[in-house]
């Protein structure tokens, strides 16, 4: 199994098949990040294409001392933000307000709790900004350190800490009513 740096060296020398090998390693992770940021399957697919196209065109800028995966994540995060911003500009009618903050609270005993909780989580994640969602997901689901997230997404460590805190506070605000209903 070749390491990423060796494959990148081959790509730089013109070896197209090595680029496919890099895609096999990273495309699913790029898709996951793109989906979390765009919340849309088709957009995430487009982000994957655009990410690998940009990475290929700029492969000479990649420094072998760094992680190819982190570098690719950064491109994917930027692509995702571009897609979300473009989508926002295209949108002519406002998005429906999230149910999270306006739905009346059902009685706890009538909740199908796990289903309700899942819906709440999905809606709350949908309420986060793309950067909040990306940073929070990378920390919470993928277990990346703040340093790694900073390298992947671009903002400084301090900014990433603050972004994750904002996301965590929003998640708590959205989920507390459900969780406190159970313990009541």
């Amino acid at each position, binding site marked *: 199994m070749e390491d990423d740096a060796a494959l990148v060296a081959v790509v730089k020398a*013109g070896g197209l098949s090595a680029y496919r090998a890099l895609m096999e390693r990273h495309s699913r992770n790029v*898709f996951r990040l793109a989906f*979390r940021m765009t919340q849309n399957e088709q957009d995430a697919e487009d982000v994957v294409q655009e990410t690998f196209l940009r990475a290929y065109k700029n492969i000479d800028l990649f420094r072998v001392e760094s992680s190819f995966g982190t570098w690719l994540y950064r491109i994917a995060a930027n692509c995702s933000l571009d897609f979300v911003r473009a989508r926002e500009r295209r949108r002519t009618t406002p998005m429906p307000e999230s149910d999270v903050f306006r739905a009346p609270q059902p009685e706890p005993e009538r909740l199908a709790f796990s289903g309700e909780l899942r819906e709440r*989580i*999905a809606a709350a994640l949908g309420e986060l900004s793309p950067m909040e969602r990306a940073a929070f997901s990378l920390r919470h689901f993928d277990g990346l350190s703040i340093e790694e997230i900073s390298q992947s997404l671009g903002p400084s460590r301090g900014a990433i800490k603050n972004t*994750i805190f904002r996301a965590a506070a929003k998640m*708590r605000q959205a989920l507390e009513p459900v*969780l406190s209903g159970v313990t009541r």
Partner: protein
Amino acid sequence: MKHPSEEQLVLRYYGESGAPGEIGAHLATCEDCRRAYKRFESALNAVTEEAVPERGDDYVGEVWRSLAPRLPERRARTWFFPRAWKWAPALAAMTAMLAVAFFAGRMSMERRVPSAAAQPAPAVRERVLLLAVGDHLDRSQLMLMEIVNARGGRAVDMSAGRAAAEDLLDANRLYRQTAASAEDFAVTSLLDDLERVLLEIAHSPEALTRGDFERLRKRLESEGILFKVRVAGTRIRDRERGETPARQDKL
């Protein structure tokens, strides 16, 4: 310690707090902060992985088929791009001849002229061989990686790989003989192994069935030739830079 901020509590939850001991000690004694931490903890514990749509088995193939036509051609020096590659054999042959000439000259001068002052500096001679072999190993490594990572349907086209292996084979023989004459046994042994692999590729059919190709790939991987070439290349670069000056140290 003063009360930690909510941001510090979240960072503690994720194990990223700069002062976990202090915050832990504070939470043990402060009911309000402990309650605030528990609120974050229970909410974040409840957040399990959201559903990301699964991709199919051929996902990479689908992306690749759509992406490959859009990838701009790179100025290449591998056998995938014949226009750039066509000069490589000539360059390799010239370098090989240069290296051989240096070493042949050294050996003949050693026989005829005992005075060290009349000979080219040994460090210069060795550097020429190192440069030439290092370059040869780089090209061999690229060619082998192209093969190991090659994709195809039922059949894998080997024509370009065969041509590249044939070109490398000539240079490899020259370097191996030169290294043997110079009693550089590690380089000789490596080039001997590489020569067998190059011979096999150079004499493979124009197209291999998927099964035959996988067998070839597995054999290359099990012999570890790519690894050996890479390690040797790295060590040779170190020697070029003078990081391993002793001749007897070799590879």
